[in-house]
């Protein structure tokens, strides 16, 4: 790892002020992804701004919404009794990610900003448009079992690895950020972006902007929810495909529904068309199977990951069935 300077920020505004336009200055919180990327020389900042002293660790239950500080740890949120009660889908998704040691270190802001685990992105001997723009994509035509089936481009077929973000996309969360131009809010589903011709940009944060909070509006999805994560081993592995489902049922009729997938795209993949299809329908195996088929419409495999098209249909059907039976 290249050596670097490290300074401690004492307020979010001073953290932003200490940063520069130069990408060689980066914020560090839990460091579980950044330190690893630095060891691999995937990123090599000259200066780190340690933001762990900022007062952004609280989980607050406000009128009509829940506000989670960007520095709240993944385990802290996953195990908070009120989060489990009000946003069980978020708690389930967080508990499905990483290991307990990593969840103790990793923050929710950092979870959103984690980079893809595409092996071509990590291997500096390989071409990768995300790591070095215009260098090519090793995954297209390469080993791409873990890769995207939705929204990919000729430049990049990497997926966003987060579980937490899949639940937050389903729950219509909002991201609060602070930057040199002041504060602003970003809809969660607009936060991460598709690769297009500039896969080096994972999200819509502008230069020097810092995530300060997440907000989740109150909702009725407190019982019939499920986070299904399909992976190569039963714990501590990234998703091949994951599904976040939240159902609001009344007499077996779907009043409202939220559905999002992970492991399939450059961003958490919200399935609004399937949600519309399910609204007003009665719970049945046939309906859920149709929902599974509808959700994977437009998906495209790249060789090694062709199995995700069938796996996706089955995972959605299964996740809906489990959520409805709770």
């Amino acid at each position, binding site marked *: *790892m*290249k*050596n*670097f*300077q*490290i300074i401690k920020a004492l307020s979010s505004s001073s953290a932003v002020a200490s940063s520069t336009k130069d990408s060689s200055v980066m914020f*560090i919180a839990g*460091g*579980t992804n950044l*330190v*690893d990327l*630095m*060891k*691999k*020389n995937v990123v*090599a900042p*000259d200066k*780190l701004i*340690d933001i*762990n002293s900022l007062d952004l660790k609280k989980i607050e239950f406000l009128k009509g919404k829940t506000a989670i500080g960007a520095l709240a740890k993944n385990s802290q949120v996953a195990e908070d009794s009120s989060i489990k009660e009000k946003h069980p889908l978020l708690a389930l998704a967080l508990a499905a990610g*990483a*290991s*307990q*040691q*990593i969840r*103790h*270190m990793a923050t929710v802001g950092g979870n959103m900003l984690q980079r893809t685990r595409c092996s071509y992105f990590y291997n*500096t001997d390989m071409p990768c448009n995300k790591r070095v723009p215009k260098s090519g994509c090793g995954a297209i035509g390469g080993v791409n079992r873990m890769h995207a089936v939705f929204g990919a481009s000729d430049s990049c077929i990497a997926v966003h690895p987060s579980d937490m973000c899949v639940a937050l996309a389903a729950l219509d969360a909002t991201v609060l950020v602070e930057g040199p131009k002041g504060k602003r809010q970003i809809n969660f589903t607009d936060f991460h972006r598709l690769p297009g011709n500039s896969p080096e940009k994972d999200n819509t944060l502008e230069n020097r902007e810092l995530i300060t909070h997440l907000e989740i509006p109150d909702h009725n999805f407190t019982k019939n929810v499920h986070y299904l994560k399909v992976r190569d081993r*039963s*714990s*501590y592995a990234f998703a091949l495909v994951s599904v976040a489902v939240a159902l609001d049922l009344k007499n077996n009729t779907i009043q409202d529904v939220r559905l999002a997938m992970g492991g399939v795209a450059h961003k958490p993949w919200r399935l609004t068309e399937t949600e519309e299809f399910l609204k007003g329908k009665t719970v049945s195996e046939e309906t859920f199977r149709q929902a599974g088929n509808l959700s994977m419409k437009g998906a495209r495999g790249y060789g090694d990951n062709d199995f995700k098209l069938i796996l996706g249909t089955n995972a959605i059907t299964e996740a809906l069935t489990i959520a409805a039976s709770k």
Partner: protein
Amino acid sequence: MASKKINQNKETSEDSNSRRDFIKKSGLFTALAFAPPTLVMASEKKWDEKIAEYLETVPLSIEVNGKKHVLNIEPRTTLLDLLREQLQLTGTKKGCDHGQCGACTVHVNGTRILSCLSLASMQQNAQVTTIEGLTKGKKLHPMQEAFIKHDGFQCGYCTPGQIMSGIACIKEGHANSREEIKEYMSGNICRCGAYHNIVDAITEVKEGGKEL
């Protein structure tokens, strides 16, 4: 990793060298202010190298197993490398060094974390407990005894991490069933496959109800 001999890629190596060269040269300019014999001496004793090293380090105050340490470290030093290379506490193991195996698990301020993904420079005033800090005098910790009794290892390399994680798993309240123990111990990989016996050991300590 903290070693300066690390094989870096070309670009970052040049960056690093140019900064170091600058610091070395500025150090020598200072030395030029002295009489020539001083300059010769400075060169012989590699003062320039020492000045460069000093300017690239940060002060750290940290408590490990109840003992306070005040040191100067490079910002890039991980907690794992600090423990093993500078404090000679080699009980904590370096397995993958990338947060994938759990061998480096230690407790920081009572919470289990991965020391390989933690920068020591971000652990100012932290209280760290490693496998060396578990014994009281010659008496083994109950979890250490249980691992021996249940054969919770074969080669033993992952064992310090497994033990630190197992203790935390119980303290966190995640050892209420074999399934729960397996899920919350999943960050500790054992390539010998002693998992079954590790779960036995943790279950026994949990049921023993001793204060950990």
